[in-house]
């Protein structure tokens, strides 16, 4: 019968029209500024550097080993090693980055830098409202803008951060034990 398919189609749109008033999972629109979807835990946008404790300079975990600079596919990270050293969380004196820039306009948030970083110094943030009017300076993030406290990392990626904390605490404990043991043998 000629018109039957069209009528069935009309019934289908009518069902959707009425459905959108009746059950919630048909009407899927989220009114963005007022309503916000919860951000997925694993969501990633641009990297940030983690520092322990209070002082971003002292507590910065990054030891400027430049692995992430080499591995980053679009080469958007530029690091300059410092001349002197500072102690890291286990007490070993390490270099630290004098300059650590990420050109956010080049970064494609692929999080390979996070994967290859042996010191858990860089993680992916999920902040996405980052529009700036300044196309060049505004998008070249320096070390100061990138540094974030460890609590922020614990807040946005809880499960992953918990594992990292556990591992670091255990490493610290081992280092302490070795130090006592070294002190005892002296």
């Amino acid at each position, binding site marked *: 019968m000629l018109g039957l*398919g069209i009528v069935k189609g009309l019934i289908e749109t009518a069902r959707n029209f009425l459905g959108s008033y009746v059950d919630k999972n048909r009407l899927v629109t989220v009114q963005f500024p007022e309503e916000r979807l919860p951000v997925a835990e694993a969501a990633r946008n641009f990297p940030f550097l983690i520092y322990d404790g209070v002082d971003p300079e002292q507590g910065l975990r990054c030891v400027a080993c430049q692995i992430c600079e080499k591995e980053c596919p679009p080469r958007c990270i530029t690091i300059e090693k410092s001349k002197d050293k500072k102690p890291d969380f286990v007490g070993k004196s390490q270099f630290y980055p004098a300059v650590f820039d990420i050109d956010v306009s080049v970064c494609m948030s692929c999080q390979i830098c996070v994967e290859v970083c042996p010191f858990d110094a860089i993680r992916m943030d999920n902040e996405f409202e980052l529009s700036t009017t300044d196309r060049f300076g505004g998008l070249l993030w320096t070390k100061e803008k990138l540094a974030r406290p460890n609590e922020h990392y614990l807040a946005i990626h809880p499960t992953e951060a918990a594992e990292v904390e556990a591992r670091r605490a255990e490493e610290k404990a081992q280092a302490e034990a070795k130090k006592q043991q070294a002190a005892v043998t002296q």
Partner: protein
Amino acid sequence: MSQVAEDIMEISMGPQHPSTHGVFRMDVRLEGERVLRLKPVFGYLHRNHEKIAENASYLAAIPYTDRLDYLCSMTNNWGYALAVEKLAGLAVPERAEYIRVIVAELTRLQNHAGMVGFLLQDMGASGTPLMYAFTQREKVLDLFEELSGARMMCNYMRFGGVRVDCSPEWLRQTAALVAAFGGFLDEFEQLLTGNEILMARTQGVGVLPQELAINAGVTGPGLRASGVNYDLRKVDRYGIYERFQFRVPLGEHGDVFDRYMMRVLEMRESVKILEQALRDIPSGPVMDPKAKVRGLRPKVGEAYARIESPKGELGFYLISDGTPNPYRYRVRPPSLINLTVLEDMCLGQNIADVVVILGSIDIVMGEVDR
């Protein structure tokens, strides 16, 4: 002023044409509304993907494969990872194989739904089928974001497994989506498949004969719509596809309606595969522990691996000279090869059909231009 009616009219559709999927141009010579000649012009989105991959390490090339066919990043990753695993001889743990099948079939669902939505949009249905398809696609993309961190640029697969294991909660959400997808497909078909206007606009339009499809190297739903039984999941049995029971739909006429039905029926088959995969996914590691993340230096040699991506046979050909970056990195783009038969299908058709035929091939310019 232009010649009119019986004289020849040259029209160039695109690259700013509302219905060429991405930046693509067609120089069409028309007699009245009938197409005499059609010259596809592409290359607007060429980003030198293969040269970049040759200068970068194997690991660094993975995020770039996301951007090949930017609607199905998971299957692109899998194709590349499969090629490198064949080259470097890496084994993949069981659970990772299951996760790969699950995310690949999810990608197929959202790609086919999107394709049908865009096809109807080209036919003039003012966005309704597209909105229904995108509602489902958003649900799949949310799952990808839960799993890999990004909706479309997942960068999820690594050589010898996958980057992150999926949580039981994620598996439960996926099972819920797969269970609801059948209902969506029934509603979708009720709106579209019986529709006389859709049948009139697509049946007998843009016919791709069987031998032309085979000779031109067309693969994927376009080939199966012309009746050729060639699905890499059955031919190559790559990954663990031989463990799942599913069927491959075949068309007879090879016209736009058959290509549309191929997508719909393949979505139903993918739902079957997903149900079986979600049921018997084992636990265990997702990454081969001894596979190094950085500095992969496969031994000298070459490898070609291909998978059944939603667009067709997506192949990666790698030549390694022992250094950390590949000597030659070549992608077999199904969209580009399926596009070569566009003119043969459009000759003699109406200008309104050219847009519909292009929509039925389902091309993504990222993969065509690389």
